[in-house]
């Protein structure tokens, strides 16, 4: 099991630990510290995927985030993940990777026929072809495109991994641990600032790991290690590797994605897989470095063609040779370092330099080492299908638009360098308008927009000396402003090779009579000719060209293609690049998992669960719960094999005949205190409140300023300046905010305070004809007669030694009471009630029975108070005072609210007295009328009336009161039902309201 392309000594991998994995089913091994990419290359595997549109064979191109091709489906730790970047994913024991976008296999892919049909797939192909006939879109085109598009397969299994979120604050966040980042973090840390240093890769140091430099007589790598060790020992510094800052948001908030355990073979149960950090930084250093850009030439996407710095990284970090017969194609000096590295490992490279013969430190060194350098040369076209075999090269003429002396040279890899593009993504996301720097043919950050400072290569400085100097200076100055401490640091001596000027050359001309594809964007298969077509067809704005050709729109966000695309557009348009402008950079910088974004907020943790103090009792007694906001409420208590329908009918019937108890803890409760409390309530509610005596409750209706009903509930005067307000469960929070708004902003002169007491009180309703008898047993020493405790009366009394509040109020329409005790005593109260209630036939009832009871009484609730109804719509105009002013009163005079035929609440019963009417049904005159069938109203609430033993519904219907006695249809296309109904009064049971007063 030898690895044919692994060097013997070089690299930072751990050769003592072999890691086995599979690729497309084949068993392979690599070492700890390898990425999937480096392990595959060590094994001589280059063909890893097929391209998006033409299904052309593709191999690795980069060694990190810039990789456009090598996206794999990866299975590890029991889950499958699509589009994993093979150049970033670290090798872990048992990992299994497969190629995407190919069928039946990456070696023989049927879709590759597209490559031969490429003249039919130009830019805008989809837009042009799938336009007509229109009817084909859903059935033919859309499914076809769906099948052909996309890369990997998302898992349909539940993600069992743990993801976490973390909030952090710091003085200085440093994004990237290259030379400038290390220098900034170090200087700031020395000034006592709270520093976070984030590095995307597993190893710190950035280019210091691969460049042949020395700092203070240490190699770059050793210096980085020294600084990192010191930073890690400082309490004010957090150092994080495998952590990418991917987004720069408002008010200097940055978001970081930490890969906590993807590289671990074993981890503890509670170790998260990945972690999302929300970092609020006072200052941010963007030391994100730069990415090499390619030179465009014929068949430049053939496997075996790499960015030259990536090739160097494979040698120096992973000890891997990408090839043994390398061709190096460059327009600048940096690729010479790759050539020298090859030479050091006894591989003979050939350098093709687009520049005319000249001299520089690196060129001279290469020459002295006997490397074959051909100036004014370039690769015209690469030969080979699944792997590059040779290259047709030529000598460029003076204006570089044609060539002579064409020859073919054998090679097994081509290392391309078209100079460097600063990674300005985060700076741009912060709102920084970028500026074009002609010296480097790329954009760099302009004036600061937030608190971002770009240093080093990210700011266009490509020498180590400058990067370190900027890093130390900015780190020191920015932190000194915060900590008001300045520690002098001497800038270290640097030894680096001097680069000569680069050549402003980025695309090889086409050879005569040949038309090979020259790719600009590998991941989306956008070639030079596609951009030419887009421009020919009139697209001018770079944003339009981008969308029409999909240039730079793939998951790599055009890291290697954007600038070459811009150069092409500006050349054709005869504009300079800054006039063409750049497209928008958006977060995330690289794809991140959905799990990380979601974090722990899944399943039970999606939202808090609110339980009443009696919850355990409900659970033990077979309650089936329903969600009411965050609350869990018993919907019904299941006896034996009862259905919801049967149980709720039994429970409701028992309330009408005997007595039942219901947990009403979830109702919103607000304590209102202060000398102006009565005046405040008088303004908040539509009815009069000034004369409510102490010890009495009143039903109140609250409007919004636009006249729509906001909420209803009872409020009780506990003492002279103390009221207890109840709200519906759903509106509790809104009502509190509403009251606070008026007290703090509109009427600050009112001396009133409000506070939520929902959680402080446990509540139980006792309802039914026998409720008074039961109450007298619960309060043996209290006079609970109709005279002593009348309807809407209130008393405070001890409940078996526990202080309690008794309200004689009713939602069920029966004789009823509501008892409140402190939450801690809720369970005691409930169990006592169950015990005492036995003699009266008491049964607990849930929300379903509660609904039945209120619906047949015609009491309105959420479905009627739906944000579209005014008091008169729901027969509550009796509660609207004509004498006083209140919130929303002025709106009630609006014309539309007062037309004769306005919607009103009515009752509906099915003609057959059997068919239940689905809630949400529309009321229509003619069930067979042509669509759209005019809608006369809708069914808001439905129940089975236990009193009359037939279905009954409430509806909001146009001109409702005049419709009583008439017949209509309630149609529900959703349930495919149409039921003939008769309109009756909304008060189906006890319309005079005798029972509550009995």
């Amino acid at each position, binding site marked *: 099991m030898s690895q044919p392309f692994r060097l013997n000594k070089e690299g930072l991998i751990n050769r003592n630990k072999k890691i086995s994995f599979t690729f497309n089913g084949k068993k392979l091994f690599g070492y700890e510290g390898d990425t999937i990419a480096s392990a595959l290359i060590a094994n001589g595997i280059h063909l890893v995927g097929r391209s998006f549109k033409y299904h052309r064979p593709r191999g690795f191109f980069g060694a990190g985030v810039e990789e456009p091709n090598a996206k794999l489906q990866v299975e590890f730790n029991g889950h499958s993940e699509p589009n994993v970047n093979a150049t970033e994913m670290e090798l872990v024991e048992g990992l299994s990777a497969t190629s995407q976008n190919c069928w039946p296999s990456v070696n023989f892919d049927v879709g590759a026929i597209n490559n031969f049909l490429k003249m039919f797939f130009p830019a805008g192909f989809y837009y042009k072809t799938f336009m007509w006939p229109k009817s084909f879109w859903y059935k033919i085109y859309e499914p076809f495109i769906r099948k052909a598009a996309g890369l990997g397969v998302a898992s349909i299994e539940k993600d069992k991994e743990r993801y976490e979120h973390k*909030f952090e604050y710091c003085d200085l966040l440093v994004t990237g641990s290259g030379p400038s980042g290390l220098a900034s973090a170090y200087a700031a840390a020395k000034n006592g600032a709270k520093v976070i240093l984030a590095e995307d890769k597993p190893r710190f140091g950035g280019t210091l790991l691969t460049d042949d430099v020395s700092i203070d007589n240490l190699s770059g790598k050793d210096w980085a290690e020294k600084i990192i060790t010191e930073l890690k020992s400082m309490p004010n510094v957090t150092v994080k590797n495998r952590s990418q800052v991917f987004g720069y*948001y*408002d*008010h*200097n*908030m940055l978001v970081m994605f930490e890969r906590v355990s993807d590289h671990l073979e074993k981890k503890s149960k509670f170790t998260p897989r990945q972690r999302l950090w*929300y970092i*609020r930084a006072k200052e941010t250093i963007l030391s994100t470095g730069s990415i090499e850009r390619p030179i465009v030439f014929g068949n430049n996407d053939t496997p075996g063609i790499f960015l030259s710095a990536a090739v160097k990284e494979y040698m120096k970090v992973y000890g891997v040779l990408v090839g043994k017969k390398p061709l190096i194609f460059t327009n600048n000096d940096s690729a010479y370092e790759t050539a020298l590295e090859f030479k050091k490992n006894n591989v003979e490279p050939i350098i093709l330099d687009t520049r005319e013969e000249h001299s520089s430190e690196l060129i001279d060194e290469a020459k002295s080492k006997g490397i074959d350098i051909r100036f004014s040369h370039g690769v015209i076209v690469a030969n080979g299908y699944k792997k590059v075999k040779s290259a047709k090269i030529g000598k460029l003429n003076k204006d570089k638009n044609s060539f002579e002396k064409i020859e073919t040279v054998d090679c097994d890899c081509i290392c391309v360098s078209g100079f460097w593009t600063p990674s300005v993504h985060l700076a741009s996301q912060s*709102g920084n308008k970028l500026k074009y720097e002609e010296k480097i043919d790329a954009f760099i950050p302009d004036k600061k927009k937030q608190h971002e400072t770009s240093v080093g290569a990210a700011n266009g400085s490509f020498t180590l000396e400058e990067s370190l100097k900027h890093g130390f200076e900015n780190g020191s100055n920015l932190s000194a402003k915060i900590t008001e401490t300045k520690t002098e640091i001497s800038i270290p001596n640097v030894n680096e090779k001097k680069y000569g000027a680069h050549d402003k050359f980025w695309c090889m001309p086409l050879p005569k009579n040949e038309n090979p594809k020259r790719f600009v964007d590998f991941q989306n298969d956008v070639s030079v000719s596609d951009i030419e077509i887009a421009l020919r067809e009139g697209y001018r704005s770079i944003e339009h060209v981008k969308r029409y050709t999909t240039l730079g729109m793939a998951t790599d966000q055009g890291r290697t293609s954007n600038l070459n695309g811009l150069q092409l557009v500006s050349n054709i348009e005869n504009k300079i690049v800054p006039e063409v402008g750049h497209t928008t950079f958006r977060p995330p910088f690289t794809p991140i998992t959905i799990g990380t974004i979601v974090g722990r907020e899944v399943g039970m943790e999606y939202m808090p669960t609110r339980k009443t103090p009696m919850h355990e009792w409900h659970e033990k007694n077979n309650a089936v719960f329903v969600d009411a906001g965050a609350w869990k409420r018993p919907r019904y208590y299941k006896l034996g094999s009862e259905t919801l329908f049967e149980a709720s009918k039994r429970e409701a019937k028992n309330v009408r005949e005997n007595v039942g108890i219901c947990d009403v803890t979830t109702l919103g409760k607000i304590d209102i205190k202060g000398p102006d409390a009565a005046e405040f309530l008088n*303004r908040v509610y539509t009815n009069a409140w000034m004369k409510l005596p102490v010890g009495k409750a009143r039903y109140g209706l609250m409007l919004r*300023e*636009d006249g729509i009903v906001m909420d209803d509930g009872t409020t009780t005067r506990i003492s002279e300046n103390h009221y207890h307000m109840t709200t519906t469960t759903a509106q509790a929070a809104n009502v509190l*905010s509403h009251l*606070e*708004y008026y007290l*703090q*902003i*509109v*009427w*600050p002169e009112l001396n009133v305070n409000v506070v939520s007491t929902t959680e402080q009180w446990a509540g139980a309703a006792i309802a039914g004809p026998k409720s008074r008898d039961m109450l007298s047993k619960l309060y043996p020493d209290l006079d609970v007669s109709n005279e002593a405790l009348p309807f809407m009366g209130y008393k405070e009394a001890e409940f078996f030694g526990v202080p309690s509040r008794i309200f004689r109020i009713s939602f069920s329409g029966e004789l009823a009471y509501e008892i409140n005790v402190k939450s801690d005593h809720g369970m005691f109260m409930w169990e006592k009630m169950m015990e005492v209630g036995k003699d009266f036939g008491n049964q607990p009832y849930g929300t379903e029975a509660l609904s039945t009871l209120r619906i047949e009484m015609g009491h309105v609730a959420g479905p009627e108070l739906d944000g579209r109804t005014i008091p008169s719509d729901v027969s509550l105009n009796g509660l609207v005072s004509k004498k*006083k*002013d209140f919130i929303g009163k*002025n*709106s009630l*005079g609006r014309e539309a609210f007062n037309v004769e035929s306005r919607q009103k609440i009515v009752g509906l019963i099915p003609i057959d007295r059997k068919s239940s009417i689905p809630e949400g049904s529309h009321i229509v005159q003619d069930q067979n009328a042509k669509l759209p069938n005019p809608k006369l109203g809708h069914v808001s609430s439905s129940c089975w009336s236990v009193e009359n033993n037939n279905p009954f519904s409430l509806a909001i219907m146009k001109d409702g009161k005049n419709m009583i006695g008439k017949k209509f249809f309630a149609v529900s296309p959703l349930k495919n039902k149409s039921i003939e109904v008769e309109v009756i009064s909304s008060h189906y049971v006890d319309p005079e309201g005798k029972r509550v007063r009995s």
Partner: protein
Amino acid sequence: MLYIKCPYCGLRAQKEFSYGGDATVKRPNINEEVSSEDWDNFVYMRKSPRGKHIELWQHIAGCRQWIKVQRDTATHEIFQTAKVTEEIR
């Protein structure tokens, strides 16, 4: 995510606040006659400026105070925050 300085609690994340609309709208006085035009303006008519906007936020997961925030609606820059009893100029 915005970083809002509550005049009572200090700098807090946007998550803790809820938005309350234009802070310059004045409710007509209670118990006083108001023309339907003035009332409609109060209930419905809001400007939607691009740029500086004085608005209400409630520190709902904090001190529960309503506060005034002067914010640029395009850039989200916050120029000033104040108690509702204070003026923002």
